[in-house]
Each structure stands twice: as C-alpha cells, then as structure tokens.
C-alpha cells in the first residue's frame, strides 16, 4: 500500500485516471444511496396501476402509515443494539411481554393505565439490564443470550396470561394511539416521527451516538481510545429493551388488548427494516431515517400484495427475502464505503 501511495504521488499521469475513477465512484455511491427510494417509487407505481381504486387512496395511505408504528419503533430498538455491535433477538418478546403486562394490570388488576405503562417500561429496563449482565459481564455472545431471553420471556407471557388473549384496555390509551387526528393520521404516526427525530439526533449529534458506533465497529480501538466499552454495550442493550417495551405500549394501544403470541411476528420484519435501512441515507451505518424509509417500503409492498389478494404466506416470503437481500446489499455498501 505504501508503494501505491508513492506511485500516485510521483506520477502526474495517474492523476486524471484516478479522478475519473473517483467521479464514477461517487456516482455509484449516489445511486446506491437512493436505490431504496427508487425501488419504493416503482413499487408504488406498479400497485397504483394494478389497483387504481384502492392503493393510492387517502384512506389506504393513512392506515398504512399509522398501522405500522409498532414495527417502526421496534426497528429502532435494533438500530441502537446493532450500532453498538450487539444482536438483540429478544426485542419481540419484550414487546409482547410489555403489552401483556399492561393488559393484565389494567384489565384484571384494575390498575391505573399510566402506572401500568410505567410498569411495562420498567420491565423493559430490567430485561435489558439482565441481557447486558449476561453479555457484558459473563461474556456470552449477544445473539445466544438474547435468543435464550426471548424464549424465556415468551414462556413468562404464556404463564401470566394463561395463554389467553385479553382485551378492554383503558380507552384513554387507545385514543392516544389510534384515533385519527391530522389529515386522518393517528397520533401513533406522530410518535414515530418524533422517535425518528430523537434517534437521529442521538446517533448523529450526540457524543454517545458516536461512541456506540466506535464500540460497534471495534471494541479494541474504542477501549484503547479510553471509551468505557462495557458500559456502552450494556447501555445499548438496556436502551434496546426499553424501546422494545415502548413499542409494546403502542401495540397495546393499537389493539386495545394483548395476545400472547402475535408480537413475535414483528421480529423478522424489524431485522429486515434495520438492515435495509443501513443501505440508504447513510449507507453502511444503521441509521434512523434509513430504517424509517425501509420499514415503510416493505410495508408498501406487503400492503399492495394483499390488496391484489395474494395469500398470507407471501408476507413471510417477502420479509424473509427482503432480509437476505438487505443484509447482502448493506454488506456490499459497507465494503464500498470503506474503499472510498
């Protein structure tokens, strides 16, 4: 590499070729950065043509945007964990547990909805702390630790609910989440936008966001730069669980109740969203707006397919394929980013 550097410094003839290459490189990078939006536009166009009467209607748009708030927030839990280099596969179970705790406390034990929500969020913090202890203190690989935790929490949910679906959560929560406000958009969408801005600010504009990135990319370099690596990793896992619990609050508000199993279905779409999100806006990095766009792109596809009347299995097929494609593309994006 040293030889290459000297060569390009001494040989003036190599300059034009190099700059031409870098211009081409920049164009490629630009295309890569916004490819997701092009794909999104195509998806919308195709479904508008195929389903002119239902797809691009105000009602479909607002319901799509509002109904996926839970998924977007859950995706943000993964953004935080993955930025710090940790996999958290227990987030969907935390979401389910959180919504179930609210339902049980509020409907069976008649506890004030605010207190119920606080209890659910506290449980999120607790789960994150335990995850962190196992991963950071004991040194278990995060994917294994959280896989175990996810199964454990699913068991807890079945146990405390007796396997039953509960309904009848306080109307005030339901109102705060699903009732349409601005232009037919529910408040849940407003929460999502606020959460996105907050996450974007933390990751891009606060030192702690940068530090999580450094730790996620190289624990060794971070440690030798004086960062408190253990604390940051632990903090990221706590934050991820807390955000997942918050997604559970939204879920309880959206459905007005809780069931012991359906939350698990969010896990794969959330992973697809976070990896697909890392291909756009800031390619090669897990980022807030990229994940936001990615989730809605995926949801648009699912929504369109369901309008044409394609069967349920398509959803699994679509999210699974999207995850594989997204991870492959973000891998390539990261490789390209490191070469420029």
């Amino acid at each position: 590499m040293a030889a290459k550097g000297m060569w390009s410094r001494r040989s003036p003839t190599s300059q034009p070729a190099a700059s031409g290459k870098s211009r081409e490189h920049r164009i490629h990078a630009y295309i890569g950065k916004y490819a997701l939006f092009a794909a999104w536009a195509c998806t919308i166009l195709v479904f508008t043509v195929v389903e002119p009467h239902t797809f691009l209607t105000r009602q479909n748009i607002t319901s799509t945007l509002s109904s996926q708030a839970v998924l977007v927030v859950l995706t943000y839990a993964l953004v935080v964990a993955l930025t710090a280099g940790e996999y958290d596969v227990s987030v969907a179970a935390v979401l389910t547990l959180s919504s179930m705790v609210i339902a049980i406390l509020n409907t069976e034990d008649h506890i004030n909805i605010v207190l119920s929500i606080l209890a659910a969020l506290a449980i999120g913090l607790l789960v994150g702390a335990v995850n962190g202890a196992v991963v950071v203190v004991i040194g278990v690989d995060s994917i294994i630790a959280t896989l175990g935790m996810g199964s454990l929490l699913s068991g807890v949910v079945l146990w405390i609910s007796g396997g039953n679906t509960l309904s009848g959560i306080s109307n005030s929560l339901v109102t705060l989440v699903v009732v349409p406000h601005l232009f037919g958009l529910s408040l849940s969408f407003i929460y999502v936008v606020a959460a996105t801005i907050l996450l974007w600010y933390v990751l891009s504009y606060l030192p702690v966001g940068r530090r999580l990135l450094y730790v996620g990319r190289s624990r060794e370099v971070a440690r030798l730069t004086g960062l408190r690596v253990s604390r940051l990793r632990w903090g990221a896992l706590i934050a991820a669980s807390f955000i997942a619990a918050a997604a559970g609050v939204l879920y309880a508000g959206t459905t007005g109740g809780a069931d012991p199993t359906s939350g698990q279905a969010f896990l794969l779409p959330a992973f697809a969203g976070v990896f697909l999100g890392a291909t756009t806006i800031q390619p090669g990095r897990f980022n807030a707006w990229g994940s936001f766009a990615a989730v809605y792109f995926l949801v648009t596809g699912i929504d369109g397919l369901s309008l044409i009347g394609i069967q349920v299995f398509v959803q699994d097929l679509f999210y699974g394929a999207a995850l594989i494609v997204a991870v492959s593309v973000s891998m390539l994006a990261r490789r390209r980013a490191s070469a420029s």
Partner: protein
Amino acid sequence: MSEDDNRPPYTLAETSKPIFELRNVSKRFGGEQALNCVDIEVRGGEVHGLLGHNGSGKSTLIKILSGYHLADSEAELLIHGQPYRLPLPATVFRSLGFSFVHQDLGLIPSLSVLENLCMDEIVSAGRRINWRALAQYARSLLAEFGLNIDPKATVSELPPWNRPLIAVVRAIGNMRAVIADDPGRRGALILDEPSARMSQDTVSHLHGVIRQVADLGHAVLLVSHNLDEVLKVTDWITVLRDGQVAGELATAGTSRARLVELIVGGTHGLSSAPPGAAAGFSPAAGPAEIGISDLCGASVQDLTLRLRRGEIVGVTGLVGSGFDDVGVLLFGERRATAGLLHFDERAVPLSRMTPDKALALGIALVPPDRLTQGCIPELTVADNVSMPTLKSFMTAGAIRQQKIHRQVADWVRQFGVTPADPGKTVSSLSGGNQQKVLLAKWLQLPLRLLIVIEPTQGVDVGARAEIFSLLKRYAMRGSAILCCSTDQDQLAELCDTVCIMHQGRLAATLRGVDVNREQVTAAIFGVSREGSTEP
C-alpha cells in the same frame, strides 16, 4: 522424487550433502531492497543458525522459502540437488519432508494436545478417525522427546512456554511421517524464533530436541535473535545484515564478539562492549517530570524509569524481554501487578490503571497495529481523528460535523497526510498515511506522556522520516515520549535515551552520544549474554 527411490541407504557421509539451498534470493518492497542476492545452504545433520538484527531480512527470507512472499526473479531453490520453482506449494513442501514452525505457532489453543499434534492426520483421515492409534502416536512422540505432557490436556491450559515445544514436536512428527517409507531420506525443520517466549528450562529442552533431530541426519534451520542460543546449539551460522549475507561461519571456533561484529557491521560494536547492567543505572539529573517506580506485571519486573519533559526515551530488548509490555502496562491496557506512576508530586498506582484513567491523566498509547487497535479502517479520517475529542465539537447540544471536518482537515494537512481529505476512509490510505492519521488522533491533545509502540512498522522511508520529525516536534512542545521498539535505526534516530531490557528487567541505559545504532545493537546482544550467565 523418483531419483530418491534409487538412492543408496543413508550413510554418514550423506549428512554433509546439502538438503536444501536457496540461491540468489532478492526481494524489493517498494523502494527498499529487503534482500539482495542471498545464498544459503543447509546440510543434513546440521543445525544452521540464521542471525541478524531486526530488519536484516531474516523473516523475509523464511517467508520467501515458505512461499508467503514471492522472490524477485532468478531466485533458485534446490532440494537434494534438484531445482524447484518458488513458491513451492505447501503440500509439495510437506511431501519432500519439510516442516515449518513459524512465530505464530499454528496451534489451536481450545483443542487438546492430541488434536493439535495430529492435525495433519485428522485433516487427511479417509473414513474414520482411529483415535486410539492417534493417541498412541501422540504419546510415543511426546515420550521420545522427553515431554511430560498429557495428550488429553487442552493446549490453552498448558503454560505458554510449553507451546513452542508442542509445535516443534508436531513439525518433527509430520516431517518423519512423510519420509517414513524411505529410511534413507532426510527432511528439514525450519524454526522461526521458537525460543523467544520460552522459559529458561524449556529452552534447554528445546535445544535438546533440536540436537536430537539433527543427529538423526535431518537439517534444521534455526532463526534466532539470541546469540547464546545460536552459539550453543548450531553447527553453522549465516549472518544477514541489510539484506545481504554478512558472514557464513562454523560455530566451532567463533566468538560472540565476532558475531556481534557481523550483525552490527564494522568493529564498532566491540569497543562499546556491554554497558553496565541494572546496578549501573542511576536516575537522570535534573527535574524528572514523570517517574515510574517498581513496575511489575506481564513479563516486566521491578522497572524504574524517569522521563523528563521533552525527552524521548526508547525501550528495547530481545523479543520476550518485556520491552513491549512497558507501554501497555503504563496505559493500563494490561493490568500491572505493582508499580507507581509519579508526576507533579502525585503517585498513581499502576495496578489500577485503565485506558480511560490514563487518558484523564494525559497519557495516550499509539498501538503497534494501526488497523485493528489504532483506527477503525472502514470509518473516515474525520471519524477516527475526532474520536478522542468529540466533546470539543459540541455546540448548542449537538456535534457539528462541519466543525469536525474543518478541524480535521487542518490537522491532516499539518501532519502531511495525502490526500488531506477528512472524508476518505482510513482503509483507502497507504500505510504511512494511516500511521500519520493515527498520530494526528493523539498528537492533537496536549499529553503529559505519549507512548508509541513500533511507530513506523510497515511504513515507507519518506513517511518514516516525517513521522520522526512529527514526534520530535511534539516532544519539544513539552511532552515526554516513550518509544517501545526493536528497530535500532529508529531508536538511534529518534531517542535521547535508550533503555535496554533483559528478562523483564532494565539491564542498561544509553544516553547522548552513546545512542547510536551500533551501540544499541551491541547492548541488546551484549546484555543477553550478561543475563544468561545468571542462575
């Protein structure tokens, strides 16, 4: 190979025939001639020592032989008199009875001794692994060379100084397995600094094993820094200096002084015979800005040092002497067991040092491996350089990317990074520029003590000179610099004072006009003799 089958049975006279020869080996790295027309001939029944100081071309030669580096054209390899083309694939080498033990021993620590010893057999096993036969083989191999090691033990549970022995015994076993069908054939064992991290008693055990192999008629090429080892165990010595053969001589009848002379060049090394050992060290006059007292930990024992403001102090020694541990212990990358750091009338216990505390005290470490320890290569120059100073870029509750960009652009221009573009990723820069980025990351701070470990490893000549001047200018602004290195030229050029370590202790200190390449080299090798005569 077919000729070999017709060979007469092995006789003693055969031992004097060369098993392998390398001829006319040259290698250029960028602008530097690492090897220049080197010839070496290794005979059967002979232990052949390859000596030379750091950068003399020893490891390049071994890497060319093993096929890791490609030699420049005209290089020839003869095995049993037959020409072979370099690089020779590993499988062919193996089939000719060649076995390598590299500095990285190639053991898998989490597996058992048995699984490590029989790795070749397990990999090439046809249908079913006959564990009983393998266990028997491992036991007999260990017993043959007098190793009292349980084959079922996990390698990571064994003391680290036993591991080179396992790797060597494995290499011998592999070599013999290949040539077992023909009792007349002889193989070659190539050992790259096997004893560097071994304890005294296991080293003498290793020497016994090496002798045993040579006495069976095989050839052994032993790369070493250690003169005593080479004088004790070899029959023939080749000394490399600046990529050329400085001398070839029979071990019998040679003296240590003659070897030092060949390694250093000229006779200068003789006059400056080993400087005073540990007892002779007295603290420097004048106000000491930073003191280190009784530092213990890793391989360092009771080290006491003083550094003044603006002083560049080098710490060096043979591999395994602990010189490279001094830096990591001071920074708290590894925990010291005892020791105090003194400055401004404060005494900080080093046993509780961590990297973040060290930084708070104004101590930073530039690690030797810039791509895995120093920088995050896939992030940009701006991301990397701003890492320790993020907070200074906060305005109204947010980090200003623009501000980082402008500041870092300024820094990289001052440090001579080309291109001076903070938006480039570190991995896209050349080695020398990466190293300058790494220095910019730390030299932007006003530090009390900067520790650098091998600061110009893998850096081209031009960048090397620039890095020296950056470090000197930084020291002049009032910081102390501690440079841990084995590069004698670098130490001579950069340092005001050089401390030489031996077996974890400070053995000699050179100051002022004594800090030159010849004296540093002579002191390193001279000291190693002093030390080895200790009980």
